[in-house]
C-alpha cells in the first residue's frame, strides 16, 4: 500500500532498509546466539543519522518525528527484532529528556545520544511492579543537594550496556501516583550497579538486566521536570514510544512474511512449488492483509502523535496490541509454511517467532492495552 510518504520519509525507509539488508541480516543469527550487544551495528545506525529521528536539530538530531522513528524501526526489525530494539529502546530512554528536560539536561545528554555515542534506557519495571507500575518501591530520598536512590529495577532493555538511564522512583510514598519522580542517571555512578543479564527466549541481541541502587547519590540537577511528575513523564513517553514498539512488531511480521513467500516459491513438493497450493496461498493472503491493516494503524497513530493531537492513548494501545498480535500470528504461520525446516535453528524463521512474542508483553502487556482501549471507549461513550 502506498502511504504517500514524503521524500524524506522514503529516504529514511530506504536507508534503514539498506542497513537491515547489508549490515544486520548477515549477522542476526550470530548475535542471537552470542547475545553480545551489537555495538558495531549501533555505530552504523548512528552514522546513518537514524538516532537523530527522535532528537531535535539544535541538539544534534534531525527532528522529533514518531512516524520517521517507526519507519526506521520497522525496516531494521525486518532483519532482526533484537538489534532493532536496541535502537528503539534508546528512543524510549531519550524521549523523557526531549519532552521534559531543561536546557542543561538537553545540552548534556542529547548530543551524544544523537550521535549514537551513548544509548539510553528507561527503567520503571520492578519485580513487584510490572503491569501495576504504581507499585514501584525504588525510593529517591532528597538530602540537601542530592537524592539518595535505593531499590531494584529489572527487565530493563539496554540495561547494562546503555550509558544513560531514566529512572522512575518514589520521592513521596504518601502521595501515591503523584509521589513518583523521574531522574536521569549515568552508568558508573557509585551505588548504581547491574544485576544479572537475563537469558532470554528472543530478542537475544539486546541486553535485558537488573539495575541495583544501593545508597546511590545523584545531584538534584538530575531530576527531570518536577517531583511528583514521574508517572506523567512515563505516560507521555509511552505515548511517543508505543508506536515504535508496534513498528518493531510490524517489521518482524513483514520479515517473517517475506521469508515465508520466498521459501514457498523455492520449495517443491508433489512435483510443484508449494506456493501453487491454495492452502498456502490463503495463509499468505491472510498474513499479508493483517500486516497491512497493522501498518495502517501504526502509521496513522504515529501521524496523530506528530500532529500534536493530545489524546492518542486509545489509538496507541490499539496499534501496539494489534501489531504485536499480528506479528506473533504471522511468525508462527510463516514457520508452519517452512515445515520441518522451520523448526531448525539453521533456518532463520524460528527466531522471528521467538522475537515476536515479547512484543505482546512489554511496553504494556496486550491485556493492559485492552484495558486502556476499553476504558477509553467507555469514557467516550459516557459523554
Amino acid at each position, binding site marked *: 500500500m502506498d502511504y504517500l510518504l514524503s521524500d524524506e520519509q522514503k529516504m529514511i525507509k530506504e536507508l534503514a532498509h539498506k542497513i537491515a539488508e547489508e549490515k544486520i541480516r*548477515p549477522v542476526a543469527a*550470530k548475535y542471537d546466539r552470542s547475545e553480545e550487544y551489537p555495538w558495531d551495528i549501533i555505530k552504523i545506525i548512528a552514522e546513518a543519522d537514524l538516532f537523530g529521528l527522535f532528537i531535535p536539530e539544535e541538539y544534534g538530531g534531525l527532528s522529533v518525528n514518531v512516524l520517521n522513528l517507526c519507519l526506521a524501526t520497522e525496516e531494521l526489525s525486518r532483519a532482526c527484532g533484537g538489534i532493532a530494539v536496541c535502537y528503539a529502546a534508546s528512543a524510549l530512554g531519550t524521549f523523557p529528556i526531549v519532552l521534559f528536560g531543561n536546557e542543561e539536561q538537553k545540552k548534556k545528554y542529547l548530543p551524544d545520544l544523537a550521535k549514537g555515542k551513548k544509548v539510553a534506557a528507561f527503567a520503571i519495571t520492578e519485580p513487584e511492579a510490572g503491569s501495576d507500575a504504581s507499585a514501584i518501591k525504588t525510593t529517591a530520598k532528597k538530602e540537601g543537594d542530592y537524592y539518595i536512590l535505593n531499590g531494584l529495577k529489572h527487565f530493563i532493555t539496554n540495561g547494562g550496556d546503555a550509558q544513560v538511564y531514566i529512572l522512575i522512583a518514589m520521592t513521596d510514598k504518601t502521595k501515591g501516583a503523584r509521589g513518583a519522580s523521574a531522574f536521569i542517571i549515568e552508568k558508573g555512578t557509585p551505588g548504581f550497579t547491574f544485576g544479572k543479564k537475563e537469558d532470554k527466549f528472543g530478542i537475544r541481541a539486546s541486553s535485558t538486566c537488573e539495575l541495583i541502587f544501593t545508597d546511590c547519590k545523584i545531584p538534584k540537577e538530575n531530576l527531570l521536570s518536577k517531583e511528583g511528575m514521574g508517572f506523567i513523564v512515563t505516560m507521555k513517553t509511552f505515548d511517543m514510544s508505543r508506536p515504535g514498539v508496534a513498528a518493531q512488531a510490524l517489521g518482524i511480521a513483514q520479515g517473517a512474511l517475506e521469508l515465508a513467500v520466498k521459501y514457498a516459491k523455492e520449495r517443491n513438493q508433489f512435483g510443484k512449488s508449494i506456493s501453487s497450493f491454495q492452502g498456502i496461498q490463503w495463509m499468505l493472503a491472510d498474513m499479508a492483509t493483517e500486516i497491512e491493516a497493522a501498518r495502517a494503524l501504526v502509521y496513522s497513530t504515529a501521524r496523530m502523535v506528530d500532529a500534536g493531537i493530545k489524546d492518542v492513548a486509545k489509538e496507541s494501545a490499539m496499534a501496539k496490541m494489534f501489531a504485536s498480535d499480528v506479528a506473533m500470528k504471522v511468525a508462527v504461520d510463516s514457520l508452519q509454511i517452512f515445515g520441518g525446516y522451520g523448526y531448525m535453528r539453521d533456518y532463520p524463521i524460528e527466531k522471528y517467532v521467538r522475537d515476536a512474542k515479547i512484543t505482546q508483553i512489554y511496553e504494556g502487556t496486550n491485556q493492559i492495552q485492552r484495558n486502556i482501549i476499553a476504558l477509553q471507549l467507555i469514557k467516550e461513550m459516557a459523554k
Partner: protein
Amino acid sequence: MPIQIIVEKCTGCTLCVKVCPFDAIRMVDKKGLTCSGKQAGLTCSGRQAVIDLNKCTLCGACVPACKLKAVVLEKEDKSAPNPSLKDYKGIWVFIEQKNGKIQSVSYELLSKAKELAKKLSCAVSGVLIGNDLDEHLDELIWHGADNIYLVEAPQITNFQDEPYANILIKLIQKYKPEILLCGATAIGRSLISRVAITVKAGLTADCTELDIDPGRKILLQTRPAFGGNIMATIISPNYRPQMATVRHKVMPIMPPDKNRKGKIIRESFNSSVYASRAKLLDIVEEIETLVNLSEADIIVSGGRGMNGAKNFKLLEELAHVLGAAVGASRAAVDSDWMPYSHQVGQTGRTVAPKLYIACGISGQIQHLVGMQSSKIILAINKDPDAPIFKVATYGIVGDIFEIIPALTKKFKEILKK
C-alpha cells in the same frame, strides 16, 4: 549519427530494448510507416525502436540482438588511415620478471606471439627490463623470441611504474613494433595503461582471444565485458602499436625449442629515464598456507551449504589431497566461515582453473561470473534445482558431507598410485 535504427527494417519486436544495459531504447508509434518485416512474413507491431542518444554509450549490445539487422552502429573511424603505420613491424611481448624470476604468463604470450607472427610474416621480440637477467635469455628465445630488447641497470632491478613506462615508451618510439602484448598482471596492467596513453595507442585489456584479420592484417582482440556476459572484439586500426593484455593461463604455452637462436639487443638510457618519483621501499611477501587462488589449477570451493566454518575442514582435506586451493562463495565469507581473500565471484576473485569443485554453492550469477571460465566444473549440492547445475560439467545431487569425504578418500587412492 553513430548509431541508428533503420526504420523500414524494425518490426518493434523489443529484443533490443531488453538487451540494452543502459535503458536507452524505447518504443514509439511508427505512425503509418511500413516495415519490410511484412514482406519477410513477420508481423509489424506498428511500433519502432528509438535510441536515446543521451543514454546510449555506443556499447553495441543491441546490434547482434536485432535479428533483422535493423540497428547500425558506425564505429569506423572516418579519418584517413595513418600512412606511417607501414613503419611499424613486429610483435613485442613485455617479459615480466619479479625478483629475477620470469613470470609464466610471458612464456604464454611468446607462444601466442609466434602464432600471430606467422600470419604477419614478422619477428617476435621480448622486452626485458631489470638487472642481471642474462641467465633467462636462452629460455625466452626457446619459447619463441627472435629478438630480446634488454635494458638493465641497478636502479630498475624491480618494477616501478614510471621508469619501466619511460623505457618501454622510448623503445617503442625507436623500434616501432606493430603489436605489443603484455600479461594482465598487477604490474602489466598499470604499466601498459600508462604506456598506451603516452604513445596514444589502442589498448585492450584481459583478452581471451587474439587473432589477425586476414584482410587488413590487424590484431583482433576479443575480451569479455559486463562481467563476462558478452564478448567484444576490438581493433585499433589507426594507431600503433596495437596493445593487448592477456591474463595468466588463458593462452597455452608451447613447448620450448632448444634449437632456436635469437638476437640480444642491449639498450641503455640516460639515468633520468630510470628515475621514479615514487620510491619502492620494501617488498613484503605473504606466504599463504593454502595455495594461491589465482595460480591454482584445481580449486575446491564452499558455499552456504557448508553450514559452518568448521565444515570447511572437509574441503581443506580434499584440497590438500588434490594440491588445490580453497575458495568460498560470498555467502560463506559474509558468514565469517572463510576470509575474504578466498572469495570467488563478482566482488571477489575471478578464477579459471582446470577444475573447479563447487560444494554447497547454489550458483548465483554473482558467483558464476567469478568461475564460469573454469575448464571443468564439478558441482555438489543437495538441491537438484540449484542453478549451478546448469553450468556444471558434472553434477552430483547429494549430501556434501557424505560425498566430499568419499571423494577425498577416492582421490587419495588414485593419486597414490
